[in-house]
């Protein structure tokens, strides 16, 4: 026996005989065929096969036999002991033993190549007969077998794999519907326009698609008979294939004490925290990234083979760029990078030819292709792919990207800011700290935020954080939570609103109980605001979902005191009110009286227990200067006094503020009105700005800000009367309130939709909702209550009380 002849040969054990495991064996043999005594475990009862060709097996273009990579004889010839159909159940790292059901094997080096398993969403009905995942040869056979004689199939998940499954099912003569939760198909690889083109293309193939649809339940007693969606609708289904993503197989590693995060954590040498244990493939996480395509795995196995055999003990794996082509017959699609992750400074090059269903889009960042998608015609794909992988500069004439790709030249170096450079100014977090977190596997903006607090203040540095993740980890991980309205409930806003209405959830705690997957203060604040706008007076107001500012109706300051800003409509006050404010400032020894940037007077340093008294003495309503609500309407002097003024800016400002006071929004909202284009009220950097024109009209523009971000408004429309201005602004505000994500300012919301679309909806009533928006404005105006009135009647114990002093008992 070979083993007897080489008693000293180190023992290499590989767990997993899939794409990565088998490739590793080949790479190891290529480096040094006689270095190790090799044993491999695979829990599938086969030699190894090419998993990515399973779709061909399903659609009948290839026979299962044709996709085997290495026959059993290959293992034998190379002296590899293969335990096919044997699952590794336990590892003893101390004794360096790997246990299968009924035996154990010793190792000197151990490699995890356990891949992943399909993610089955937690919806009722998944155990029914006729419900399948799509991962293994057996799945493939079972699906094909079950499909015989069936009529309808539903594929849950409109990603790459889901579409392959759908196409495969078509060949079995079943009618297929693909259901996708995101608003369009293949949302990881495509933007909205691309998703639409793809939808068209597959519709032409005879596959129905329902995007933006959440599956609620699989129906049936023994066998699945239908699928029910979150909106209550149902469709019949004789079978269901679930393709909703994957989960790495890392439990075994975790159980034996190997460090795992989302997957098994490995370093640049694919080594885990145990120097004798390694990992490759879909079961590992390198620099926070998990790769679900084979190309990266092959880069990994190559490095690991060198490291293991000592062919190049210093070889390192530094991450991969992801690019893929869809293999669905009849659909030409190539994708590289993350197309949806667009930064404000990115250049977008786009070409579309709807008649042929051709859509090309490339995103250029720092002069290089950072992402692209090509649909319908893949002529430029290879050149683009090459530029993408090489990180080579794109041609100066961007058109050449698509019509003749430029030649690869020198690589531009990464943004080399020093580690001490401060990225997050709110929390004082430096680049070095963030990079360390990213290297520690925090590869989403929220994850970095959680670990370092970067980006958790005003949020204006989030794009920088994202850029760093890209630079360090090679890509921001797909993070489904980005589309959620708030972090604690895994639903986007439309689904959340629908669920809340369907279930009649009227309090934050009810929403968290029924739909929540967590809890945090920002989510509660967001839910409170949303519920209030949905239910109005029926909303059950729980004070523990409010931030302190909203509990005591004043802005908390760094020393725990509060500031009070009396409502001064339009910034116009009177001598009486000024005197009153002065008296109050004196009476309560207000340490600082300040004019704010919004033309209001701020009384700073007021103690909590003095708040009711201050308000009573002032007798003016709350300035709402701290809320996610309408704050101030800034005005200029206008036609009343200014020699240039062409219209009554103060009058309109006061009317706007009176009408919209107390309106709550996903973020703060500031307005301004200027009496002529000299724009003294700085209306072009407000959420809504109004400027009187020479012709006697009002120009209404939206989406501006002069805070952490500076953005100029975009013109929405011109109106001739004050009433029209009030109406159109009211519509815009309600539309924003109901459709923006929590904490999304108008300067993100407007460009996200595009000003043309906003104009279509608000001005031209393209959706036919303007009347409903008007009704909502009236409802909200009517619901306004000055929260300062709580001064007379605290709504909970101790609302405006100072700390209670309790003496220690005398012993």
């Amino acid at each position, binding site marked *: 026996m070979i083993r007897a002849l080489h008693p000293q040969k180190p023992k290499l054990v590989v767990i997993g005989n899939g794409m990565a495991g088998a490739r590793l064996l080949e790479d190891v043999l290529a480096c040094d065929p006689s270095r190790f005594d090799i044993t491999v475990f695979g829990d599938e009862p086969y030699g190894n096969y090419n998993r990515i060709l399973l779709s061909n097996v399903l659609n009948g273009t290839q026979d299962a036999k044709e996709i085997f990579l290495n026959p059993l004889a290959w293992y034998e010839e190379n002296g590899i002991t293969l335990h096919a159909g044997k699952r590794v159940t336990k590892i003893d790292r101390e004794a360096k033993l790997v246990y299968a059901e009924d035996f154990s094997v010793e190792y000197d080096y151990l490699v995890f190549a356990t891949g992943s398993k399909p993610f089955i969403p937690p919806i009722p009905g998944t155990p029914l007969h006729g419900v399948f995942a799509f991962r293994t040869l057996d799945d493939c056979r079972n699906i094909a077998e079950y499909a015989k004689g069936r009529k309808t199939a539903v594929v849950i998940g409109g990603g790459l794999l889901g579409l392959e499954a759908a196409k495969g099912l078509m060949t079995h003569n079943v009618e297929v519907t693909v259901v996708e939760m995101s608003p369009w198909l293949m949302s990881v690889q495509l933007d909205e326009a691309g998703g639409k083109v793809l939808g068209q293309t597959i519709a032409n193939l005879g596959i129905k698609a329902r995007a933006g649809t959440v599956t609620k339940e699989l129906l049936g007693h023994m066998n699945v008979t239908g699928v029910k969606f979150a909106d209550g609708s149902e469709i019949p289904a004789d079978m269901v294939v679930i393709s909703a993503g994957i989960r790495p197989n890392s439990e075994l590693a975790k159980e034996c004490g190997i460090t795992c995060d989302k997957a098994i954590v490995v370093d640049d040498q694919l080594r885990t925290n145990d120097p004798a244990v390694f990992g490759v493939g879909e079961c590992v996480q390198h620099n926070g990234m998990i790769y679900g395509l084979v190309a990266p795995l092959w880069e990994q196995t190559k490095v690991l083979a060198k490291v293991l055999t000592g062919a190049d003990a210093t070889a390192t794996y530094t991450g991969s760029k992801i690019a893929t082509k869809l293999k669905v017959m009849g659909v030409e699609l190539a994708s590289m990078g993350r197309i949806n992750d667009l930064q404000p400074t990115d250049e977008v090059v786009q070409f579309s030819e709807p008649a042929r269903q051709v859509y090309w889009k490339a995103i250029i960042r720092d002069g290089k292709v950072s992402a692209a998608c090509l649909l319908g015609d893949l002529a430029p794909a290879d050149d683009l792919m090459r530029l993408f992988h090489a990180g080579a500069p794109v041609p100066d004439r961007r058109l050449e990207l698509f019509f003749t790709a430029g030649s690869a030249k020198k690589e531009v170096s990464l943004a080399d800011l020093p580690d001490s450079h401060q990225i997050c100014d709110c929390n004082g977090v430096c680049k070095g700290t963030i990079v360390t977190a990213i290297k520690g596997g925090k590869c989403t903006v929220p994850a970095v935020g959680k670990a370092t607090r970067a980006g958790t203040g005003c949020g204006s540095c989030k794009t920088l954080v994202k850029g760093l993740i890209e630079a360090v980890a090679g890509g921001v991980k797909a993070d489904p939570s980005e589309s959620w309205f708030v972090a604690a409930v895994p639903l986007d806003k439309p689904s959340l609103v629908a669920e809340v209405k369907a279930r009649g959830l009227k309090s934050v705690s009810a929403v968290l109980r029924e739909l929540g997957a967590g809890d945090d203060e920002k989510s509660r604040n967001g839910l409170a605001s949303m519920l209030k706008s949905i239910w109005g007076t029926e909303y059950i107001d729980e*004070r523990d979902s409010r931030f302190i500012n909203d509990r005591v109706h004043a802005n908390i300051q760094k020393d725990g005191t509060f500031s009070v800003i009396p409502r001064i409509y339009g910034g116009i006050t009177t001598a009486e009110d000024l005197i009153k404010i002065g008296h109050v400032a004196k009476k309560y020894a207000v340490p600082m009286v300040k004019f704010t940037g919004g033309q209001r007077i701020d009384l700073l340093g007021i103690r909590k227990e003095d708040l009711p008294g201050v308000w009573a003495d002032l007798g003016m309503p709350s300035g709402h200067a701290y809320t996610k609500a309408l704050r101030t309407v800034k005005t200029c002097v206008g036609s009343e006094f200014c020699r240039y003024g062409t219209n009554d800016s103060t009058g309109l400002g006061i009317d706007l503020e009176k009408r919209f006071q107390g309106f709550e929004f996903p973020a703060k909202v500031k307005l301004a009105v200027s009496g002529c284009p000299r724009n003294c009220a700085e209306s072009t950097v407000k959420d809504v700005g109004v400027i009187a024109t020479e012709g006697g009209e009002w120009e209404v523009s939206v989406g501006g800000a002069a805070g952490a971000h500076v953005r100029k408004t975009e013109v929405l429309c011109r109106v001739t009367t004050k009433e029209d201005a009030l109406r159109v602004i009211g519509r815009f505000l309600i539309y924003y309130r109901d459709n923006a994500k929590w904490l999304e300012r108008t300067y993100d919301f407007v460009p996200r939709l595009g000003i043309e679309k906003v104009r279509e909806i608000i001005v031209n009533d393209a959706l036919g909702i303007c009347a409903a928006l008007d009704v909502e404005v009236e409802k909200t105006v009517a619901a306004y209550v000055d929260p300062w009135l709580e001064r007379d009647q605290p709504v909970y114990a101790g609302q405006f009380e100072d700390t209670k002093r309790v003496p220690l008992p005398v012993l």
Partner: protein
Amino acid sequence: MTATVTRVQLCTLADLPTGLGRGFEVGGRPIAVFLGREGQVFAVDGKCPHKSGPLADGMLIGEQVVCPLHAFRFDGNSGACDQESVCGIQAYATEVRDGTVFVTVPLS
């Protein structure tokens, strides 16, 4: 060293708003007391170690007290902070008997 502790009567349960905190000063020591939605009562230091935020004005998320100023979180049972760089706070044993809330604080 032996620490001497004493049990002090604080307030009635009705004095604590559900899910919210109230500030106390027990023998000169600032303490934030929270009543959780499940009826638990937590008592922790009243001042945040970060920049002295008044924790009684914070929010209670599950069993964590969230500082109102910069949102550092502290475990209501142990006082541990969720950020490595920030030291935790002192948590005090509480007890509710017949609707009266007691807290145990060190004597010194």
